């Protein structure tokens, strides 16, 4: 029923001597999808991307492109193009010649080359810059040339290796929107690598969160944000408060957890289907799901603590509350509400049962 995936990685492993860079990764990326691989440095996301491109040969496993096994094909034989992290624009060629490079490699007729390059320049909003050399362009312009150079070849899949990393914040935000727009217009599958989780959440149809060579979770941004499948994903995406505790009882649709600070809180049973009373758990709640006040209010879970800090951030503010066992909790509140709290004041932090996340001692649900 679903169309066959554009790119498939089947049990792909990459070893460098003793070290394992990528541990048996399985991925299916759908046609026309904006798919991101997200993770900290060294998690294997760039290595995986380069295996799709053909610059790295997998130690074992297969890579399929639209069903065809391209695992052993060199990069020049794959209908895949890459936007490099440092753009890799040819410094000795003009913008037009850079963009035309792939077409010329494929011996496309010069008239067609000219028209396609012109079209690419227009689409990438590089009008008038065709004769310039890369070093005469701004960072944002260079980025667009790199993109145009790849897209003009109409590849089956476009690979992007942290393409916005070198740009200033404002330009980066703007380019993020541009990339999203271009991808939707052109309809090509994008495989995007980044360590910036906000970027991945904003741009992607689906995200694969990677850690130490393995994929922790694959899913749509909302799903990863609201229902992280491991403590690593929970902590890596957005801000997260974590507290340690032990399961008191698990009955019906609830789990009762006794926190190390002494309080008892409750969470949905679906959070920990396989754990029992006596197991150690980590409880997690997002800062924006917490409320602060002088009395408990009518939310199920409460914690007492002292205000230990305040950070003004414009849109929202972060209030820091330290609870009795020493853990510092972050709470997002609006500006006016935050100003009324004084340092050292005793407060009650409360949140709803449905917003409670639980993970076992191994970081998994």
């Amino acid at each position, binding site marked *: 029923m679903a169309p066959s995936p554009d790119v498939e990685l089947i049990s792909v492993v990459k070893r460098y001597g003793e070290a394992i860079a990528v541990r048996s990764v399985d991925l299916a990326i759908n046609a026309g999808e904006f798919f991101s691989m997200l993770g900290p440095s060294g998690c294997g996301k760039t290595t995986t991307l380069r295996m799709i491109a053909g610059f790295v040969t997998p130690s074992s496993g297969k890579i399929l492109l639209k069903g065809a096994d391209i695992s052993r094909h060199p990069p*020049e034989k794959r209908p895949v193009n890459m936007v490099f992290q*440092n753009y890799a624009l040819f410094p000795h060629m003009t913008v037009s010649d850079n963009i035309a490079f792939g077409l010329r490699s*494929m011996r496309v007729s010069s008239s067609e080359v000219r028209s396609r390059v012109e079209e690419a320049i227009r689409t990438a909003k590089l009008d008038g810059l065709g004769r310039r050399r890369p*070093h005469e362009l701004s*960072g944002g312009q*260079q980025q667009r040339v790199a993109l145009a150079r790849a897209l003009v070849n109409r590849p089956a899949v476009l690979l992007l290796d942290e393409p916005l990393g070198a740009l200033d914040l404002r330009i980066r935000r703007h380019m993020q929107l541009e990339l999203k727009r271009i991808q939707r217009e052109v309809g090509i599958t994008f495989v995007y690598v980044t360590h910036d989780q906000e970027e991945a959440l904003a741009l992607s149809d689906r995200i694969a969160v990677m850690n130490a060579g393995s994929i922790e979770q694959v899913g749509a941004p909302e799903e990863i944000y609201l229902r992280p499948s491991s403590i690593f994903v929970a902590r890596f995406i957005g801000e997260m408060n974590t507290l340690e505790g032990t399961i008191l009882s698990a009955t019906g649709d609830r789990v009762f957890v006794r926190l190390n600070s002494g309080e008892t809180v409750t969470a949905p049973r679906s959070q920990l289907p396989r754990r029992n009373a006596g197991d150690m758990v980590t409880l997690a709640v997002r800062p924006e799901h917490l409320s602060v006040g002088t009395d408990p209010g009518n939310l199920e879970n409460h914690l007492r603590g002292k205000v230990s800090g305040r950070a003004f951030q414009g849109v929202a503010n972060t209030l820091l509350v330290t609870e009795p066992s020493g853990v510092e909790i972050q709470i997002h509140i609006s500006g006016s509400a935050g100003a009324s709290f004084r340092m050292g004041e005793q407060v009650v932090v409360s949140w709803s049962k449905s917003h409670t996340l639980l993970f076992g001692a191994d970081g998994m649900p």
Partner: protein
Amino acid sequence: MSNRRISRLALTVLAVCAMIFIYMPIAMLVLFSFNDSPFVAFPMSGFTTRWYTDLFADRRIIGSVWNSLFVGGVSTAIATVAGTCAAFAMARVSFRGKTLVRIIIILPLMIPSIMLGLSLLSVFVQLHIHRSLVTVILGYCTFTTSFVTLVVGASLHNLDPSLEEAARDLYARPTGVFFRVTLPLIAPGVIAGALFAFTLAFDEYVIAFLNSGTQETIPLVIMGMMKYGLSPKINALAALIYAASFLLAVVASTVLLRRGRLRRPAPAA
């Protein structure tokens, strides 16, 4: 005067003295090339340009200029091709025994010329090969190739590897990558290496002395004249060679500086 200023002053004085020391012989030569006396001695007589005109009439000297250009040119050409290919192999192909090859490449620059010259002479005599300009060219090929290999090797080392990856990503095959991307970007290094190799060969005396036949190169003529009859014509020749080298160096550096700006990978915003 502060500590810092004293040291700055001292260094400046030292630097000036060093430069004078380096340039003194050159200045002397040029000076005496205009001296109206067949002796290179003080005090100086009048000003004349007759040595320059005499120079151009001297068949032996002019012949040696052509010979030097020929020998330098051919050995540099051979060295440039062999050296660039070798540098490419060292930088891009992986194989065992690279250290040994590296030593083989650098040895001709460390071994004294007399050893290179004498050993070649032994071979030529043993094989009854007649000595001529060709044998001199053969003698020059070794160290010129070494030199070009080293310089081009440095150029390749500085080349951003992602550029060649990008070329492959854009469907260029290995030869395409080399001719469309690598070679244009290392061209300044190749040219610099070639120019340098040429100047080394142009000026080389020992190997030429040991392996030449009847045809002479410039250093041979100069040394010959020095033993038997100094003439200010040599000064004139030297001055002209200096002017030519100077010009060549100016041209080479402006070319290199301009191309050099292109070699830097795309700067971040």
